[in-house]
């Protein structure tokens, strides 16, 4: 049976997370269909059809799917699930929101945020905030899961030539409706997809110092800005910048942690980064145990110098 990948998009373009998810799907089987559910999302479907390894694109284009409301999307996916052995999507807030509903509608258990594929029924996933990795075998006839995208290299976005088929399946629960959306405006790359992240911790001492010391370095590197929970709790920066178990999970090429001690909850959110740099005046700080490069220095002197030299 074929594999269904649910596409992550904003009705305009396909999100890269979908390409990572297709890469994971390829380890489970060959016949990969991508479902694009949205409103005015033809361009997204055309884009998905070009992705490497995709054999068919299904486009469900209706106002009911405009804002990716979990109830409607779940009914749609469950309705077409009969044809598929595996149903997966990226472990983004959208994927996490609707996919468990799909599993419950199909009366099957589900696997969240898989980080590895052992075989088509067996998967690896982090548990306990990444402090352990579980290998889980499922005997469900239908495998429903979300994929930790940072664990899979994306497939090529060009080269494929799948057909696009239109679905006229309209599903509405009538129990939930969209009210409004308020997206954070930032010229910097998004935290979870940035290739470089510069994060500050409690040692920054206040919000102004984030602006004065962390942001110039981030801007010079084209990096996203992150923070530890201590910095968020102290009110230096908003909560959506928090990296960690209860915040965002990142795995950039370069993660620079300035003034962050490295509590386990923080490490859970960033220790899969390719290269970790820690700038800290305490060589005993736990962050030193995961850092590839540890600079023992006062960050108020080291950060401006680093900014001027990169």
């Amino acid at each position, binding site marked *: 049976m074929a594999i269904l990948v649910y596409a992550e998009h904003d009705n305009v373009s396909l999100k890269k997370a979908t390409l990572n998810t297709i890469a994971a799907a390829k380890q489970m089987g060959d016949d990969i269909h991508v479902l694009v559910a949205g409103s005015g999302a033809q361009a997204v479907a055309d884009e998905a059809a070009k992705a490497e390894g995709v054999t068919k694109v299904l486009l469900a284009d209706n106002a009911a799917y405009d804002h990716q409301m*979990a109830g409607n999307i779940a009914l749609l996916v469950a309705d077409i699930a009969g044809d598929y052995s595996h149903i997966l999507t990226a472990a983004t807030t959208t994927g996490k929101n609707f996919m468990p*509903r799909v599993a*419950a509608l199909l009366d099957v258990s589900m696997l*969240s945020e898989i980080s590895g594929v052992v075989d088509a029924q067996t998967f690896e996933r982090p*548990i306990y*905030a*990444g402090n352990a990795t*579980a290998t889980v075998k499922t005997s469900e006839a239908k495998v429903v899961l979300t994929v930790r995208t940072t664990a899979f290299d994306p497939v090529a976005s060009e080269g494929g030539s799948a057909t696009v088929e239109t679905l006229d399946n309209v599903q509405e629960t009538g129990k939930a409706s969209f009210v*409004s959306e308020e997206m954070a405006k930032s010229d910097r790359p998004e935290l979870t997809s940035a290739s470089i992240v510069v994060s500050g911790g409690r040692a920054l001492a206040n919000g102004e110092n984030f602006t004065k010391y962390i942001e110039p370095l981030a801007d010079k590197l084209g990096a996203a800005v992150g923070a530890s929970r201590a910095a968020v709790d102290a009110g230096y920066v908003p909560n959506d910048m928090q990296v960690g178990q*209860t915040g965002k999970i990142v795995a950039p090429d370069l993660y620079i942690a300035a003034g962050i001690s490295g509590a386990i909850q923080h490490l859970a959110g960033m220790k899969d980064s390719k290269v970790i740099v820690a700038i800290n005046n305490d060589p005993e700080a736990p962050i030193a145990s995961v850092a590839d490069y540890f600079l023992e220095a006062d960050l108020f002197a080291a950060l401006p110098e680093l900014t001027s030299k990169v």
Partner: protein
Amino acid sequence: MKALVAVKRVIDYNVKVRVKADNSGVDLSNTKMSINPFDEIAVEEAVRLKEAGVIDEIIVASIGPKESQEQIRAALALGADRGVLVVSDEKPYPLQVAKILKSIAETEGTDIILLGKQAIDDDNNQTGQMLAALMGIGQGTFASEVKVEGDKVNVTREIDGGLQTVALALPAVITTDLRLNEPRYAKLPNIMKAKKKPLDEKTPADFGVDMTSKQEIIKVVPPADRKAGITVGSVDELVDKLRNEAKVI
């Protein structure tokens, strides 16, 4: 209006977990256990809704080992009115837990069902969504703000890149994110009073739910160690290493 809050007994979030030597799981013997931090936020939100006069009664439910009654008592000390403990020796998986919660919610006729967005042990982030699907009702996951208005509730949700507000018909399921509120501490007199609050003990069989899951944990291993890093002596050396050795800038 009645609220149902689900709480899970998990390893305290400050404890550094150890994987068992036989790779069968994580060693939980002699470890400090607590209410899952997101569930504590759910309890707090229910208590605030009660204080605001929106909710009259808060029922707190937990499914798990008998010791989970400690977590129910803790929630009662924070302001919940009564507890339901569903004792299960089997590891509780989200689908089975959702089925039991559905049964409780429908029997009690609860209008607002609050859960944490995820438990910090299995990191699943599934139960609330599954419950909403089984009940055929709306869900407001990763909530950072909850406003009940008449027969509906407006939930502001933390999504990638910003916030989204949805309106849900009641009854509805809400799962809490970190920003929703700051849970209070239980005061000693309330801890004493909580011991006298009613706590029903049930089994999954009472709800006709079979706890066996079609998922089997083959092994649990510690995450791969990172190779030891080096200490650099200056910013110049750091820049040089990043440029020429790691090649990341």
